[in-house]
């Protein structure tokens, strides 16, 4: 790894420096756009005491559901965890702390963490349990609550293609939380479907500039589908 080349060859290299009790952001919406191989290795290596920032918590047996099974997660910061029965059980028993955060607030808190904004006001959650113990302030006659930025030790994200400098593009709704998470951690590791040479991605259409990326690993993806819905062929 010299110069601007950020490609690593093994998942072990990609996760060098990862330890127990870290705070880690994991990209994806449901099982769409998750860094499958990085999640798998952390499961295998058994790191524990983790604080996870991820919109969802995987499903039983896949994605972050694996970490849940092995009791690797101490705290989960998410907006929706309805697909994970084990989550519910561990949360009710107190084995897992759940910090439920509105999806837009979560996205904005992560963006703020990457953008040097320590806190911002939002109307979302005012007057609800989310607003409890948060500062309330009125602007132009409407009430808002103060929300603070989120940052982490590691971000584990998934992109479609990377060039070796770490410029990233995402595909369709597999983008979701990945671009903000790329900006908000000390170390950003990206698992991609394809690695290309600098200059092969159009500079007008880079979703995440390479400055945010520390390590790139080419992964293989199962891309499991949660809710397979279809219509009949059009006549």
């Amino acid at each position, binding site marked *: 790894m010299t110069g601007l080349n950020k490609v690593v060859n093994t998942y072990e290299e990609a996760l060098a420096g990862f330890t127990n009790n870290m705070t880690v952001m994991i990209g994806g919406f449901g099982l769409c756009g998750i860094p499958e191989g990085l999640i798998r290795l952390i499961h295998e290596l058994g790191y524990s005491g983790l604080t996870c920032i991820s919109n969802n918590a995987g499903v039983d047996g896949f994605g972050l559901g694996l970490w849940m099974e092995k009791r690797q997660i101490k705290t989960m910061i998410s907006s*929706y965890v309805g697909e994970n029965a084990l989550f*519910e059980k561990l949360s009710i028993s107190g084995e897992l702390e759940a910090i439920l955060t509105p*999806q*837009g607030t979560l996205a904005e808190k992560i963006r703020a963490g990457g953008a040097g904004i320590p806190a911002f006001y939002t109307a979302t959650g*005012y*007057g609800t349990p989310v607003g409890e113990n948060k500062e309330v302030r009125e602007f132009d006659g409407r009430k808002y609550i103060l929300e603070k930025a989120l940052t982490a030790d590691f971000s584990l994200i998934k992109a479609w293609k990377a060039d070796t400098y770490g410029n990233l593009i995402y595909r369709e*709704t597999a983008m979701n939380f990945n671009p903000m998470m790329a900006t908000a951690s000390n170390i950003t590791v990206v698992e991609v479907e394809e690695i290309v040479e600098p200059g092969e991605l159009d500079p007008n259409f880079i979703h995440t500039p390479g400055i945010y990326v520390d390590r790139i690993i080419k992964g293989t993806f199962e891309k499991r589908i949660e809710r397979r819905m279809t219509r009949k062929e059009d006549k």
Partner: protein
Amino acid sequence: MPLTREQIAMRIAQEVYDGYYVNLGIGIPTLVANYIPADIQVMLQSENGLLGMGPYPTEAEIDPDLINAGKETITAIKGAAFFSSADSFAMIRGGHVDLTVLGAFEVDQHGNIASWMIPGKMIKGMGGAMDLVAGAKNIVVAMAHANKDKQSKLLKQCTLPLTGVNCIRRVVTDYAVLDIYDGAFHLLERAPGVTVEEIIEITEGELHVPDHVPEMKF
């Protein structure tokens, strides 16, 4: 007769106008897409990062990278755009979506809504619902007027943890269309064959009833 789920969706589809950008929640709201008139053009927003959601895919079109906010496989129409969750919620929270349709457990006469949590029961999380109710210009709630025991879900004051305060203006139930303002429900339309008396009986919150309450038209 109280409306079926499909009929609620049909009635809500009348709230959708040409050129609208619309976010449809999970459940009955999703069905609204099936009843949007063919002669108007609307764009459906899916808060996981898609503007221009199309129908479910054919078997051949299925793409695991392309899902909606309910995690269902979906398609994108011509002229769609994909974007990040931060950009998607900037769109929602900035008031750019013309209409949001979502479900609820309870609403009250102050426009409060409870839709995400039943304490002691399941822990699921609010997803994007709190952002949607705080950000939308125009919200229609699709819900049952009462539970099976005829206990009203249109209340003086919500009893469940709130999703948002003072944000709901219009409710379409299996019995009626109502607006909420000045601290009361205002009856606008009744389901075909349902009487005003029946609606009064299953509405706990303060209800204003005009002299004439037309039946919904489909």
